[in-house]
């Protein structure tokens, strides 16, 4: 098939970006979206032009590196990661807009690459269970009901790609934070730090340049792992409980 790509080009954070047009022929429908960009990049390199920068690594939908705004939808028309999107989802003659995630919390590094280190800082603020190596009791010491373990797992499948932020009209990171609060809050091991965790993570999220959550749900609709809006309800429940119990974020 033949395609016209309109791609966001921005050499560095300091330089203003713009859309550039590229024409591609002989695109196979079995190609992944990123393989299509590989083909374009090899051509650009041979033509002496700067190839398009985009983050990618595992290319099997689990590392969370890739993430493109495709025709205005985070990760494009299928609810999956960009690397798992295949060209059979497009038609001959299509024009495709490709942009980076757009959010104050994710400054552009170059072209389609953004800085998502704010996510690491949110985890750092409290997205863990304090269990120093060597301190653990036997794994069967505390049985965990299967429903809780399964629900915790569902929340824990978040890959930290940032599509939720990119899709949110407010640029909120709430689904990301809620997924971690839910994962750890559903497990018995996560109870001792449950109150402080939610308060600290929310405080860090607010300190980054993310917007507030107004329960619109665009985040969950594009999430490649289908993280549910229920996690946000759980976060709000935990936050209210924690604040009523007097938890305060560490200064």
């Amino acid at each position: 098939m033949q395609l016209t790509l309109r791609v966001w080009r921005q050499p560095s954070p300091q330089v203003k970006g713009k859309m550039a047009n590229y024409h591609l022929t002989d695109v196979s429908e079995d190609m992944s979206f990123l393989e299509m960009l590989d083909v374009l990049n090899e051509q650009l390199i041979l033509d002496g032009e700067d190839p398009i920068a985009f983050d990618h690594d595992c290319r099997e939908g689990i590392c969370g590196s890739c993430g493109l705004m495709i025709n205005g939808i985070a990760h494009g028309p299928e609810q999956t990661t960009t690397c798992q999107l295949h060209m059979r989802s497009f038609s001959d003659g299509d024009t495709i807009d490709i942009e980076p995630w757009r959010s104050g919390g994710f400054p552009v590094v170059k072209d389609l690459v953004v800085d998502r280190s704010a996510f690491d800082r949110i985890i750092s603020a409290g997205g863990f269970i304090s269990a120093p190596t060597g301190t653990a009791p036997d794994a069967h010491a505390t049985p965990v009901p299967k429903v809780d373990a399964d629900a915790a797992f569902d929340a824990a499948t978040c890959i930290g790609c940032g599509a939720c932020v990119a899709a949110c009209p407010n640029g909120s990171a709430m689904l990301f934070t809620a997924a971690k609060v839910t994962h750890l809050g559903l497990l018995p091991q996560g109870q001792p730090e449950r109150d402080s965790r939610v308060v600290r993570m929310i405080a860090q999220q607010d300190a980054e340049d993310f917007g507030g959550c107004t329960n619109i749900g665009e985040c969950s609709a594009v999430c490649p792992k289908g993280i549910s809006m229920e996690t946000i309800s759980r976060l709000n429940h935990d936050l209210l409980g924690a604040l009523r119990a007097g938890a305060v974020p560490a200064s």
Partner: protein
Amino acid sequence: MALELFLEGDPIADTKAPTDVPIGERWSERKFRGKLVNPANRRKMTIIVVGTGLAGGAAAATLAEAGYKVKSFWFQDSPRRAHSIAAQGGINAAKNYRNDGDSVHRLFYDTVKGGDFRSREDNVHRLAEISTQIIDQCVAQGVPFAREYGGLLDNRSFGGAQVSRTFYARGQTGQQLLIGAYQAFERQVAAGNIETHSRTEMLDLVVVDGKARGIVVRDLVTGEVTTHVADVVVLGTGGYSNVYYLSTNAKGSNTTAIWRAHKRGAYFANPCYTQIHPTCIPVSGDYQSKLTLMSESLRNDGRVWVPKERGDSRPPQDIPEDERDYYLERKYPAFGNLVPRDIASRQAKNVCDEGRGVGPGGLGVYLDFAEAIERLGRKAVEAKYGNLFDMYARITGEDPYSAPMRIYPAVHYTMGGLWVDYDLQSTIPGLFVIGEANFSDHGANRLGASALMQGLSDGYFVLPNTITDYLSAGPFEKVPADHPAIVEAEEGVKAQVEKFLSINGTRTVASFHRELGRLVWDYCGMERTAEGLRKALDRIPEIRKEFWTNVKVAGDAHTFNQNLEHAARVADFIELAELMCIDALHREESCGGHFRAESQTPEGEALRNDEEFAYVAAWGWTPEGEPPVLHREALEYEYVHLAQRSYK
């Protein structure tokens, strides 16, 4: 063996395992004999950890908890991206929760046998001992392993074992374990105990007075080249499967950190031991950038078959039961579809070579779930393997619930890596190597669900207990920024970057990578012959020469430049490929994943030659044009009886 290929060096041996006590006591004895570092002194010492996968992430977190100053480096944007995240099936542990006869000794035995008797007994026994602690640790961190209705942990079976000892989190075990390590890591970042360097790639090792004292890195965003010094350097930088271009590894996975350490004096052990995973989605076109694995756990319920007749082009549903050849069940009745990976892969290759392969180009076999869906119901199959089936459907556009999957082997893991002793220290004092980056535990073939076990064992439990013996002599004398070793290493890195950008030839980096990968796959892949390896060894120097005179690298040195990153990695893959082929050519026996066509049993199984080859081949680097030096570490088996491996 032709002498021009390599030079004979002195033998090498591990001196750290206390072999004067029985094997079950050696790990505690080593911990007792090794010197310790008191908590007040730990604060004075800096440890560099490169890589944030299961090994590197776990090590950085644990060392930081212990009180050392840790500096962590990774090339991705976040420490959570390391490729451990993609491991699907599970992690082994000798918990014997199933009451099915498992024990530390059985896991030890299975792993030594699975590695085709080419691993070090002491290391494998320690791994089996630690396996149970890993599960405890991960559960305490909140890793949501699969559980049964009673709330206890579930298990499944994996290749090469007759017990159920594999713990799992649906098809995303690696992700959940890595996120556990990442959270422990981030906790230490918050505590100020880990200094982080994201999007930073190690490009050289700084060796001062014979000791590893630092690394030269390039900031991948700004292009700045700097040196970081420390008391000790730890590499947890993963394997080198991407030498084959197409593999199941992430696109960024590379050999650069360990290769450059090798060029500074660390021996590279068993480079030809590579694992070809039997269940991957077949290649669909020339543009293909990577291969996708379907977890080995699928072989618990999926049945592998091809048509009995060659060239049978009927759709699978139209081929009656008695015209199908369930060749693994037929040839290996005891283990059936759960034979180890090397055997399953080679058998798939054999049936395809016979012309009985299925799908485009005849390079595929069926993995059929019809019987499992009938026996368990679609719902149960969905619950167990749903995400894998979805992934298959997305990539191929076919529905695996209604037609069998097509699978073909693909490069997946490298058992070879930098040589380490029982303490995980390389031949350069102060350079420790953990996880897939070292060679230590899997011999010539790794069993399924053992990589996660080894990564976490090294990172959480082994390294933090062995590194103290080395550090007890520290903190070491400060290395000034203008030390000749630093200046020389930095200049070398900068010169290489400039060289890449100045060649301005006519071929892309990727085109060289594809050509190299195809060559190594053809001649140093699933089946190797002296003739083929000679061909590869003739061709690789030509590829290297052309690369250094005709590659075209885009952009400049001072901005984010992914093409430049790739160029440096491919340059190292080319050099490594040559050593792999030399290693494969010199090892005139078949063992595990290394199958030499000249050495097979009448039934076509790998035929070892213990008389001549029961050793680890540890290679020393010599400058281009001179043959590498072979140092042999003799493998002795005190507890496991050397035998022809049989899974029949």
